[in-house]
């Protein structure tokens, strides 16, 4: 049958940054189905060169406003490893608390503000203010509280202030942490359960599409790994983060200002669904209960379920944040200053899970504590090849639905990945000085 398709979604909406969906089919033969990344390149490597270790996280957090906290954490880990800066247990707990706040904030924003309108067949969250006010209000309350975690612990939710390499310039009071603990239990948890119920009612709208792929995320023995862990692939298991280049393997394609990645197959997926597939056994029972309710099962290969996985892990993040706060409050907040006296100089790697997937930073420092080489590999860049592969499988399956419906489905697909196109186009150095 001679089907012809010509789809071009110029500047995809409800994602961060600029991308175009392009599909061409001639006489039933798919010539092209892909996401073209047209975001302006930003050249962060050029900005980092020669900068000292106090500035690295300040600069790299500007790669992405939504993941600014994640970039900071990953940056600190790389810097601290390179310079031999040990941090206290209190610092690690506070950082994990920040990571939970940032994960909840981003996941809720995506699931309820950016993806839900698709399932309710509207073009944005704004009409939902009239038709589903209680959903919008719950989402706003959750976002507020998630942001408050950032504000209380680090001074500001977007581009945090007080967390620095080696620790914190200022510590939150025990009282403010106790208030957070109370609000998480009394407000966040019920709101999340409500959000899960809302998603459950929309579950029938989630497209039934699967494509076997490789999933890569962090994994650790004692945690649902977000702040720290080994790199883990569903195909080949666990390796230390020193192998991150092999486990990302960037290359340039002409249709994208952001580099693509592949490891054991032509593509792999990172993000909440990858974390779920790798680490569901590390989730708390409440989160597993929500997963069961939403029909999310281990070994899920439907990328549209990424949004569901985001809701599930938010429940875990909320409960784990409460547990961390209990530990901090039981021990009492100890006054301490950041440890910023380097004991060595060289290369350090940080690998952290940010909402959209695994993020790597690697820096090399000279004896003056200045950066001589840097590399960052961002989750959305890692997902791009997987998105293209999904499109190539999906388009022929739905080809008789007509161009408009296919275009909409492809937009939903891309949005399900929660892509952060602006940060995928940071483009850091890939060459290292020997």
């Amino acid at each position, binding site marked *: 049958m001679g089907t012809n398709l010509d789809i071009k979604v110029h500047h995809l909406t409800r994602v961060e940054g600029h991308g175009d969906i392009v599909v061409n089919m001639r006489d039933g033969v798919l010539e092209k189905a892909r996401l073209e990344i047209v975001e*302006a390149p930003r050249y962060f490597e050029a900005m980092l060169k020669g900068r000292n270790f106090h500035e690295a996280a300040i600069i790299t957090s*500007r790669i992405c406003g939504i993941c600014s906290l994640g970039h900071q954490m990953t940056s600190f880990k790389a810097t601290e490893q390179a310079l031999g800066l040990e941090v206290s247990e209190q610092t690690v707990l506070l950082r994990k608390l920040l990571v939970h706040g940032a994960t909840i904030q981003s996941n809720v924003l995506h699931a309820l503000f950016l993806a839900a309108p698709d399932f309710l067949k509207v073009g944005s969250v704004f009409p939902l203010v009239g038709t589903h006010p209680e959903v919008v209000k719950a989402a706003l309350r959750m976002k507020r509280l998630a942001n408050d975690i950032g504000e209380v612990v680090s001074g500001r939710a977007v581009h945090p202030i007080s967390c620095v390499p080696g620790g914190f310039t200022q510590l939150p009071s025990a009282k403010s942490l106790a208030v957070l603990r109370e609000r998480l239990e009394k407000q966040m948890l019920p709101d999340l359960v409500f959000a899960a119920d809302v998603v459950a009612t929309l579950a029938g709208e989630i497209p039934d599409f699967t494509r076997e792929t490789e999933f890569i995320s962090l994994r650790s023995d004692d945690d649902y790994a977000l702040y720290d862990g080994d790199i883990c692939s569903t195909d080949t298991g666990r390796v230390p983060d020193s192998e991150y280049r092999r486990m990302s393997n960037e290359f340039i394609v002409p249709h994208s200002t952001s580099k693509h990645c592949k490891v054991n197959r032509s593509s792999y997926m990172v993000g909440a669904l990858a974390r779920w597939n790798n680490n569901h056994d590390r989730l708390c029972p409440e989160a597993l209960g929500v997963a069961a309710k939403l029909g999310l099962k281990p070994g899920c290969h439907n990328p549209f379920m990424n949004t569901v996985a985001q809701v599930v892990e938010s429940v875990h993040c909320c409960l784990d944040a409460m547990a961390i706060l209990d530990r901090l409050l039981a021990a009492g907040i100890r006054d301490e200053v950041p440890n910023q006296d380097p004991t060595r100089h060289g290369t350090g790697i940080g690998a952290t899970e940010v909402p959209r997937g695994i993020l790597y930073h690697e820096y090399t420092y000279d004896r003056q504590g200045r950066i001589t080489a840097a590399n960052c590999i961002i989750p959305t860049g890692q997902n791009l090849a997987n998105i293209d592969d999904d499109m190539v499988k999906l388009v022929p399956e739905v080809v008789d639905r007509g161009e408009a419906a296919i275009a909409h489905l492809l937009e939903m697909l891309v949005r399900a990945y929660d892509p952060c196109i602006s940060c995928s186009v940071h483009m850091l150095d890939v*060459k290292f000085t020997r």
Partner: protein
Amino acid sequence: MANKPRVGIFDFTGCEGCELNQLNFEDQLLDILEHVEIVEWREAMDGRSETLDIAFVEGALSTPDCIKRIHEIRRKSKVLVALGACAVQGGINALKNIRPIEQVREEVYGQDKYLFPTLPALPLSAVVKVDVNVRGCPMTQLEFLKVFTALVMGKAPIEPGNAVCTECKLKDNECVYEKGMICLGPVTRAGCDAQCPTFGQYCTGCRGLVPEPNIGAMEEILVAHGLSMDDARKKLQMFNANQLEGVS
């Protein structure tokens, strides 16, 4: 008011943190939506619009396509607001301007550097007329709300011209210089309530330079506090690389 102002929100080269901060008005968002009609916002909604009363624009201009788009936005908007350090001064992006652009492109894309056109990162005001600045990296919500209210009421918002140090003193902060740190508060435009020193950090100058900044004196202070002249310069460049080239 008879007709609600029609508002568009746009982004160029930046991290979209300022846009995110607009979604972070959890307590006021529903009220804001009562007073305006948001007709174009790619990050949050589908659809485009041909005429606008107010355009909020985030990000620096860094490609030929950016230049084309900002002209279109200017043409269809009555008031154009630059949102955040990238749009107002070029922000962090302008750090790429201090080295030869060809070298920068090659370091990142190697022999594929010609695939992706690029320009030095510029503030909006380098290309079109900007009516209002909302400063900061990210812009503060309080300031955005003030500017927004003024615009909706048809008034011109006022930009602070004093230095961050004055706000820091008003907050009774211990000056971070007393703690052996350095700070750009003396040459940075106020309006953030000295956020960073209040949280024990130094001011990195995200709100841009005060009018007629004394850069020489600032460099001397930094050098007196242990920085080399080169490092002092680098500190000042962080958010103000474009302006420094112009002022010194």
